[in-house]
């Protein structure tokens, strides 16, 4: 049962990273504009993520200390205040985008506008977090997230040219519209490798009382959870490339993405897309709100835990409540959800190095991880990710101006 719980935590973490509104938007845009050419960006993000998530779980299981807490203990408050503040701001925007995703999904099914559904969607999310436990959120979202397998079915049924798909795994230079190409590449990385995933996974591992015996399962969970998420994101690119690219359709509205399953799944395409988007965005919004509460509580030393009654962890409960309120207000301003999503994905890429840099110290500190320090391969991946995310952070803003949609 504990093993199933571990895998559910991995799948929910992956849903927050791979199957939410950001991945849907960036993958659909990538497929429509550049066919299979940006699959490599997804693969790159997924490989980095599998390693980093495994490290996060290992750190939590061995040290019993959260990532956010360890960063403050090891680097001090003046350092930790920078990534924590940046994360909180970006997470607020992300929660807004996810609430927009759920509201858009309901709009697809009912026809009523997004603004009508933003408040009810946020109330459902809040009730889910307030009334239930981490396990219930994990099992329900991970279970319902299996609807996303519809994308795999659609991708297979669309009979993509496998040779072209395989070529997409190798990085290539764009023939035209280079700024938009690179903007989408970093947005895909930003949409997949998100700082809140590490805080959520780390805190979930502590809540579920992982120990050194959990390390093998942690490896499996990282691989299965993130692998599942990456596979679905890959099929979104394939479906979008097969449906939109031949028609020269550039994605600039969520309404366009909704048609991605229609050619292969017929009349079930739009309802299925709406259900997948709604479930995944709901799970992601819960994950991001909780991750922010975990992150803040751990950095400031508050008592925390999703499995305890909200009144016992009042500051923790207040934090995720505020996150959902701010996200809802963002949606009620009438901001375009797709524009908000794309902006947030790029900003996520900007703050990413601040989260990844501490890994190189924490995962080699025997005080925390005992004999389970990183090996040469793990350290190489961390250094590579730091370099990659730093480059991405530097070029994001110029590319946002030149190539953002």
């Amino acid at each position, binding site marked *: 049962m504990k093993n199933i719980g571990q895998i559910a935590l991995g799948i929910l973490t992956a849903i927050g990273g791979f199957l939410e509104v950001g991945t849907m938007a960036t993958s659909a845009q990538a497929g429509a504009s550049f066919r299979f050419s940006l699959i490599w960006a997804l693969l790159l993000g997924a490989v980095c993520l599998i390693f980093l998530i495994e490290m996060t779980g290992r750190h939590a299981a061995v040290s019993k200390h959260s990532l956010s807490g360890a960063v403050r203990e090891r680097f*001090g408050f*003046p350092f930790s205040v920078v990534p924590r503040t940046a994360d909180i701001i970006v997470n607020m925007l992300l929660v807004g985008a996810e609430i927009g995703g759920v509201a858009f999904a309901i709009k697809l099914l009912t026809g009523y506008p997004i603004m009508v559904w933003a408040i009810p969607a946020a109330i459902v999310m809040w009730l889910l977090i307030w009334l239930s436990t981490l396990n219930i959120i994990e099992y329900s979202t991970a279970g319902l997230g299996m609807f996303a397998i519809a994308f795999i079915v659609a991708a297979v049924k669309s009979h993509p040219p496998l040779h072209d798909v395989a070529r997409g795994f190798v990085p290539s230079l764009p023939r035209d519209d280079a700024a938009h190409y690179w903007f989408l590449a970093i947005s895909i990385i930003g949409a997949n490798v998100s700082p809140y995933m590490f805080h959520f996974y780390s805190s979930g591992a502590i809540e579920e009382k992982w120990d050194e015996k959990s390390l093998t399962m942690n490896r499996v969970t990282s691989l299965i959870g993130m692998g599942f998420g990456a596979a679905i994101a890959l099929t979104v690119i394939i479906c979008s490339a097969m449906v939109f690219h031949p028609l020269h359709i550039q994605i600039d509205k969520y309404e366009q993405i909704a048609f991605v399953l229609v050619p292969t799944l017929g009349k079930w395409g739009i309802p299925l897309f709406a259900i997948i988007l709604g479930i995944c965005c709901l799970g992601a919004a819960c994950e991001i709100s909780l991750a922010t509460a975990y992150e803040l509580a751990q950095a400031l*030393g*508050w*008592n*925390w835990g999703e499995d305890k*009654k909200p*009144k*016992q962890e*009042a500051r923790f409960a207040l934090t995720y409540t505020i996150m959902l309120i701010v996200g809802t207000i963002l949606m009620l301003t009438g901001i375009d959800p797709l524009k908000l999503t794309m902006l947030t994905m790029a900003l996520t890429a900007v703050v990413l190095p601040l989260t990844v840099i501490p890994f190189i110290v924490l995962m080699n500190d025997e005080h925390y991880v005992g004999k389970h320090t990183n090996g040469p391969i793990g350290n190489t991946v961390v250094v590579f990710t730091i370099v990659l995310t730093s480059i991405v952070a530097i070029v994001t803003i110029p590319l946002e101006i030149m190539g953002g949609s």
Partner: protein
Amino acid sequence: MKLVNDLLDKQLLDRKKVKAGRVDGIILELRDDQPPRVAAIESGFAVVAARVSERWARLAVAIGKRLGVRKTPRYRIPWEKVTDVGFDIEVDVDGINSPLMVWEKWLRQHIPGK
């Protein structure tokens, strides 16, 4: 003991092992002809804010006064009350009835339900 490594920013646990904040600052007592000694540890947003800049500290104090929940922006725990210095720092203080968790207590009183 290395003060910055082993004490500063570590998790504070009260006498019931409840997470009650972090060691935000350390107070040293300078003594004539003797090495300095740790007199107290400090907790409070004004303390950590001061470690970033004095302007932040003033802002934290001003906001704290305006909100009026926490009476003392800095809470000092005498070193004699520190019972263990390990991975976490344990103190002989009742967290929920001390300034360490005054916000937590205020919120618990204002949140409906059990």
